[in-house]
């Protein structure tokens, strides 16, 4: 009797262990199709994004709007599938792509050599740059980017964004404080606890317009120029080729430029937010 129970136990354990061990193999077999192929079969394109004004944000009704949202929606439309947005925290967006939580990141992600080692990028479909907005109280009189490259100067930026990379490169002597959300970084400067915030244009300029008595722009325009691309998992040439050619196609149409002007140069969309 005793021996029988023991054997049963060992048997159950063995079955369990082998089943778990077999799962990665089964999954690998699943993923042999290219992402484009999987998307067509599924009928849904899953897009990873994070809130970043005016790339992607939620309007009053909870619907996502913004430049990236337009791009991803058009992309899905052209593929003949439905689009599904997966809002993800920016700091965890690359691990989420690598573990297959969605098919592609369309979220204003700057193409960086270090990032490119982990994921594949499409050809740039947009260019952005870093801009800086400073606190009138803390940084009175400072103009030009060099004025902020001093010890004792505090710069706020969003964790994991290219703003941090740019700040480290152009302002190596300043202290950089990182925040999980852009709003927190700007709030820090509005409250006068940091000298300036580095962020993707045009948000710094928009914030300076919103708080004219607290913030000012130490430089005109941007101090970096960064290419923006879709990010996909490595080793999938078919998908990369499809996305690259789609970008070429809509750029030639002038559609990309037209959307970009609407979201970045006008503020017609502001009434949809508040």
């Amino acid at each position, binding site marked *: 009797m005793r021996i029988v129970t023991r054997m049963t136990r060992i048997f159950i354990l063995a079955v369990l262990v082998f089943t778990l061990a077999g799962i990665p193999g089964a999954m690998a077999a699943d993923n042999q199709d290219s992402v484009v192929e999987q998307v067509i079969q599924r009928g849904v394109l899953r897009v990873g994004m994070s809130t970043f004004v005016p790339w992607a944000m939620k309007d009053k009704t909870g619907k996502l709007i913004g430049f990236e949202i337009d791009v991803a929606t058009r992309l899905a439309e052209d593929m003949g599938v439905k689009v599904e947005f997966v809002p993800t925290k920016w700091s965890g967006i690359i691990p989420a792509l690598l573990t297959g939580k969605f098919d592609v990141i369309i979220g204003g992600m700057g193409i960086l050599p270090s990032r490119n080692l982990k994921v594949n990028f499409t050809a740039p479909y947009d260019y952005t740059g870093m801009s800086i907005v400073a606190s009138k109280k803390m940084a009175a009189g400072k103009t030009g980017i060099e004025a902020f490259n001093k010890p004792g100067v505090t710069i706020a930026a969003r964790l994991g964004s290219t703003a941090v990379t740019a700040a480290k490169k152009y302002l190596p002597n300043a202290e950089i404080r990182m925040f999980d959300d852009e*709003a927190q970084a700007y709030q820090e400067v509005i409250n006068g606890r940091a000298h300036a915030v580095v962020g993707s244009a045009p948000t710094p300029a928009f914030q300076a317009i919103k708080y004219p008595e607290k913030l000012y722009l130490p430089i005109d325009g941007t101090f970096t120029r960064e290419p923006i691309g879709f990010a996909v998992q490595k080793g999938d040439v078919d998908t990369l080729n499809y996305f690259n050619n789609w970008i070429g196609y809509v750029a030639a149409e002038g559609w990309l430029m037209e959307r970009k002007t609407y979201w970045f140069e006008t503020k017609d969309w502001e009434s949809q937010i508040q």
Partner: protein
Amino acid sequence: MIGKKPRITATDLILLAGVGVAVVWLLYQATVQAQYRWNWQAIPQYLLRLDAQSGRWVPGLILQGVLVTLRLSIWATILALIIGTVMGLFRTSCSRYRRMLGTGYVELIRNIPVLVWIFIFYYFIGDRLLPAIGISRATFMDDGPLSGILGLLMAEPSRVPIFISGAVALAVYEGAYITEIIRAGIQSIDKGQWEASSGLGFTRIQQLRYVIFPQALRRIMPPLAGQFISTIKDSAIVSVISIQELTFQGMELMAATFLTFEVWITILAIYFVICLVCSLLVERFELYLKKEARPA
């Protein structure tokens, strides 16, 4: 002391005035000194808004988050209660194998930070387990009656895998604490009760069912209720894996509108109200248990 009417003394008044001044000063600092531009008018539309197309009131972003938080908390609590009860019984079991299993579980979970646990579970464990039981594929089915039920009980079909990941991770975490509460409850019952019921010829399961557990339940209830309320609060942590619950929705809203303080304060008030209501319900239930226990 008993029956003496409380009187307000000069010391009380001075203390009260001191606290009042401190609160007013803090509020002044927060509103006037910080020179934050308050915009409370924007908040109600994120709670509830009139849909222009259908002409009906629909939940806004924050209220949608509240619903997810509630669903998540309820599922996590049910699962945690099951895990906790089984493991609690294991820990008080006669079998050394089961005791080791229970102890291993509790010590493993209790000694890792919940944030790290949720990350690990979502990216590694959940990723391997969910496809294995066919959940991720099944959820892309067309809108049928099943997807409606799923949407009501859990999340919209496409978000079910991540929802399950979050709920299970939270349940396994809370389960470790519930295990300890149940173990403590059972072990607090006098040894004589076991011996007496054993003397009456009860089997071990009967002893637990008819003698030990009814007594232990009254001692288990208060800390267990505390743990349930804790689960609601802890559910905020799963915002890191992008489950769209209250905290996540709040953060998204802040990123889009820059209404940092208004949104945080609203969220704080909502968590407080939910937890307070639960506390009051539990208090009622405890009073009821006390009445039941009183000999007629």
